[in-house]
């Protein structure tokens, strides 16, 4: 599944940077019914984690009230060059990941 990650390619040491992520997921609420009355089972992303050179810097628990194709924006202090890793975990064993690198000067 596609994911869009926006991390600045370069930052000054100590600079506060914004990280934006967008990933494909239907986020089926589990509260909707089909035309013949059957409940559509819940199928959502439940957890999101961002790690910066291995250390967790941001985590979120998501609920059915998060819109389809979840968008998350958050901040971190640029400490050192390296890699951001993103992980989405959800219902029915769903798991996806992405990464982005940064150069800190």
């Amino acid at each position, binding site marked *: 599944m*596609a*994911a*869009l*990650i*926006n991390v600045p390619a370069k930052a000054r040491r100590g600079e506060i940077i914004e990280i*934006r992520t*967008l*990933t494909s997921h239907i986020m089926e609420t589990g509260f909707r019914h089909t035309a013949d009355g059957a409940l559509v089972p819940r199928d959502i992303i439940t957890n999101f984690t961002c790690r910066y050179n291995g250390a967790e810097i941001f985590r979120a628990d998501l609920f059915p009230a998060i819109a389809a*194709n979840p968008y998350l924006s958050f901040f971190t202090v640029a400490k050192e060059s390296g890699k951001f890793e993103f992980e989405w975990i959800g219902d029915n064993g769903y798991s996806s990941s992405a990464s982005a690198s940064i150069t800190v000067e």
Partner: protein
Amino acid sequence: MSFWRAISAAALLATTPALLAGEIPPDARRSGYSFMAPDTRAMQDDDTSNPGMLFVLDGEALWTKKTGSADKACADCHGDARGSMKGVAARYPAFDKALARPVTLDQRINLCRSNHQQAPALPYESRDLLALSAFVAHQSRGTAITAGDDPQLKPFVEQGRDLFMQREGQLNLACTNCHDDNFNKRLAGAPITQGQPTGYPLYRLEWQTLGSLERRLRSCMTGVRAQAYDYGAPELVALELYLMSRAHGLPMETPAVRP
């Protein structure tokens, strides 16, 4: 809910008794973008916050993926889409000589699949078809729309125009009653736009997914309590062609974001 919608629709009719069909002058044509709130515009403007771009990315992957018994990818014939597909979507629906009628971009993709890739057609509104058509149309972002300029399309543009002007459904409304005569007003809190199809396939917040112009037209038809034409029906293609010719000169925005 339906009841209150009905009241507001009835009120709209009551306050505008003389509904004369009149086309919008070219210099007054406006994209649906101009009717949106700043937050929704911002969502479209930034590619990393525009959820339609997720589909463009999927389409880019499909473009180079071999498929069908011919084991060919789109790229095997068309090469780099950034060059070969630039401006193409701005000319669609386009006249197909073999079929002697206009075909939509979705139909062109499926014709390519059956004729050149020997692959089964992708269903209308399926993720793969939307992704491919979003990827192709995205290559025309910024290109002025010229669909309908081909003289062979004239009778089909006329057919689409007639359908646009024709009252239908239990509300007995034609497209023109809202989108020519009453744009800029509001219907149940939502702005009425000119219905310019500049950004399809587009991401609708209502749908929470990407959808085609045909899906949008069908939901308008449901809105006026009319029987919607089937996907791919000649009437829908003619309407799409007329709408694109009506948006002549407006830049393509695919993938647009709309409420």
